[in-house]
């Protein structure tokens, strides 16, 4: 092929004129042959690509095109052979420094122009612009991903508040199809109750402020869903274009929240006391029921530990201790406990405590529900007292059955037998007088038993009703001992009294006297034959009142043999001593009438010790 020759030079302009114009053009002017080989390259190539024209002449332009762009360029060149002019799509071209440059190129078929005889190309470097477009596409991809792939509903609104664009979740959320939603105002989805809230929020958005609201919407099926929507204004070049938003379905959360609200309403309105404590057991919140039951205001109890606030002197220390250790065990528990109102009034609570843990198993709260069981407890106490009384009465009945069947019946049987015998005996015999004497003896015995029974019965009755007076223990003791002074002297007994003169109590004087009298009398009666009697009477304070102790060094008893019968009526344990078997029975009855308790310790030939506990009620 012939090298291109600029044959004709116009009259008005020199050859150099054209060369300078082409060479200084911003565009790169070149001429290719049909194969694409450069036949002419303008001087501007140096500014655009870094080559000098001579380097490129004779080189095939296609060899410098980026392989990925080559097909498009080849196609355009082939097209040029059939057309006059075409625009070649952007392609990358290797510059002198080895970098790729984006070129925008137009080609003009001038093969038939006798002056040119080639394809005239005019190219310009558009690398910067192409890069920008590329970057835009790149960002667009990210934006689209954010928009369409977002797990929540994403949408855009135009300035009229109509849906323009949205991801597929809006359809799932609302149940409407894409075509139903497009161009529809957002207000058509809102539940009527939330129209105002929506309008107010949008007002803010239009004034340039992003906003998040919770609203209810109506789906196509008519069900209500709760959504949290964040809406933000969109500006482009300082111009408000519309808004875009993200909506999240919070129906489930909302129902949990409503459930909680309901529960807290229940907690605050229930008649039971509800207490929420922190892990240290200190009160964080109490309901109205608690305030009503205990008489405390909420602000008075917050920060306190319930048991310290409510338990008092009457609370069983064992229960207190058990409650504390159950709190520490961090397991649910329930207890019945005596508490006190602010006024000091007693109130029985059934408490039910549940520890609350978070997902990691850390203790968050204790929740206690307190039920007032005072009435039930009082009824229980009455019942226990009644059962106790019944038990005592039953014992009494058994005792009286015994008295009647043995002690009363025995002299009657004798009298009957003797009377029958008298009928058979001749009056003149000596035996007759003996029988009459025995008959009288039997009737006297009968009289004694009847009197005993009368005494016991009246004692029991009066024990319940007799009024208490202030009794000095030492004084009573001395009066009793005085009665026996003569006998003490005769038997050479040593008597010691250790009672603080200040000890006094509300009691029934006659009973205390009788109790001491019987015990001292027994000590004398059953003293040892081999040694003089040592008798000690003392009183001590104990936590419930006083303990009165009477101990001797007498003949004693074998406790194994006597313990079950010692205090029973008409039981005797000393074969050689006179006794009716009523003394200790009376002592016990009198001690019981004083709400006290009697204990005995004894050993044969060593002595006997009686302890009488006089309860706190009488102090």
């Amino acid at each position, binding site marked *: 092929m012939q090298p291109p020759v600029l044959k004709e030079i116009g009259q008005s302009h020199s050859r150099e004129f054209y060369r300078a114009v082409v060479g200084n053009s911003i565009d790169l002017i070149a001429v290719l042959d049909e194969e694409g080989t450069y036949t002419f390259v303008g001087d501007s190539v140096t500014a655009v690509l870094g080559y000098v024209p001579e380097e490129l002449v004779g080189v095939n332009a296609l060899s410098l095109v980026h392989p990925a762009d080559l097909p498009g360029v080849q196609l355009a060149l082939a097209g040029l052979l059939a057309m006059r002019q075409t625009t070649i799509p952007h392609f990358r071209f290797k510059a002198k420094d080895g970098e790729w440059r984006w070129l925008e190129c137009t080609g003009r078929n001038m093969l038939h122009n006798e002056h040119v005889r080639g394809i005239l190309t005019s190219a310009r470097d558009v690398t910067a612009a192409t890069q920008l477009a590329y970057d835009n596409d790149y960002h667009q991809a990210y934006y689209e991903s954010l928009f369409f792939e977002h797990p929540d509903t994403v949408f855009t609104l135009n300035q009229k508040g109509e849906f323009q664009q949205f991801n597929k979740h809006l359809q799932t959320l609302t149940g409407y199809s894409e075509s139903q939603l497009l161009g529809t105002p957002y207000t058509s989805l809102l539940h009527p109750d939330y129209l105002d809230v929506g309008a107010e929020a949008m007002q803010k958005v239009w004034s340039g402020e992003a906003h998040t609201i919770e609203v209810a919407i109506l789906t196509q099926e008519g069900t209500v869903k709760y959504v949290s929507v964040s809406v933000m204004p969109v500006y482009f070049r300082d111009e408000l274009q519309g808004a875009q938003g993200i909506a999240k379905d919070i129906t489930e959360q909302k129902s949990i929240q409503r459930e909680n609200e309901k529960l807290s309403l229940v907690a605050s309105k229930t008649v039971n006391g509800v207490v929420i404590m922190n892990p240290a057991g200190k009160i964080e919140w109490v309901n109205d029921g608690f305030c009503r039951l205990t008489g405390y205001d909420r602000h008075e109890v917050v920060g306190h530990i319930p048991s310290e606030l409510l338990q008092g002197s009457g609370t069983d220390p064992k229960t207190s201790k058990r409650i504390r250790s159950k709190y520490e065990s961090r397991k649910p528990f329930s207890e019945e406990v005596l508490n006190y109102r602010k006024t000091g009034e007693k109130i029985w609570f059934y408490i039910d405590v549940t520890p609350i843990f978070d997902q990691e198993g850390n203790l968050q709260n204790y929740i206690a529900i307190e039920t007032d069981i005072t009435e039930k407890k009082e009824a229980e106490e009455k019942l226990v007292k009644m059962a106790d009384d019944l038990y005592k009465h039953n014992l009494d009945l058994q005792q009286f059955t015994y008295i009647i069947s043995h002690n009363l019946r025995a002299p009657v049987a004798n009298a009957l037998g003797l009377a029958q015998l008298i009928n058979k005996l001749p009056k003149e015999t000596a035996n007759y007088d003996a029988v009459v004497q025995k008959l009288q003896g039997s009737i006297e015995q009968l009289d004694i038993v009847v009197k005993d029974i009368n005494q016991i019965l009246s004692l029991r009755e009066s024990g319940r009703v007799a009024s208490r007076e202030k009794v000095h223990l030492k004084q009573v003791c001395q009066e009793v001992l005085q009665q026996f002074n003569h006998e003490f002297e005769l038997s050479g007994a040593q008597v010691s009294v250790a009672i603080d003169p200040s000890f006094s109590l509300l009691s029934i004087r006659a009973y205390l006297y009788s109790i001491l009298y019987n015990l001292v009398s027994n000590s004398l009666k059953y003293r040892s034959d081999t040694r003089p009697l040592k008798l000690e009477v003392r009183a001590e304070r104990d936590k419930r009142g006083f303990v009165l102790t009477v101990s001797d060094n007498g003949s004693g008893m074998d406790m194994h043999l006597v313990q079950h019968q010692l205090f029973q009526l008409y039981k005797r344990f000393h*074969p050689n001593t006179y006794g009716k078997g009523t003394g200790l029975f009376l002592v016990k009855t009198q001690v019981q009438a004083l709400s006290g308790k009697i204990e005995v310790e004894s050993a044969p030939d060593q002595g006997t010790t009686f302890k009488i506990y006089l309860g706190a009620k009488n102090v």
Partner: protein
Amino acid sequence: MYNKVFIVDDDEVSIFLTEAILEAESFATECKGFLDAKTALQNLLDSAKGSSEDALPEVIFLDLNMPFLSGWDFLEALSPYEQALKGRCRIYLLTSSVDEQERTRAAGTSLVAGFLQKPLEDEWIMQLKESC
């Protein structure tokens, strides 16, 4: 007529009365009263074991309500010698008690031949004599 009868009772009048009735009915040749149950028991045990020359009584009238050793204790102490006593010695409870529980308890005790209530009646004595 029986040879030998024991009366065990802490009540002196009761023994006197029983003896008087038995005498009047010519119940036995020898009537022995014991105010102290322990002595009576020792006496019986010696005879039962053969360590004493004395023969066993053919009939014993035993009171129940006695101090230190009740009629029931007495029977319990005898129970190991039930075989030795069987057929040779009959024990009758003679008590002033009108307690139905004691009558029931007596019925359940094999050593007891009968439960009699004080005062002893002629009729019973006649019956006992007949079974001599």
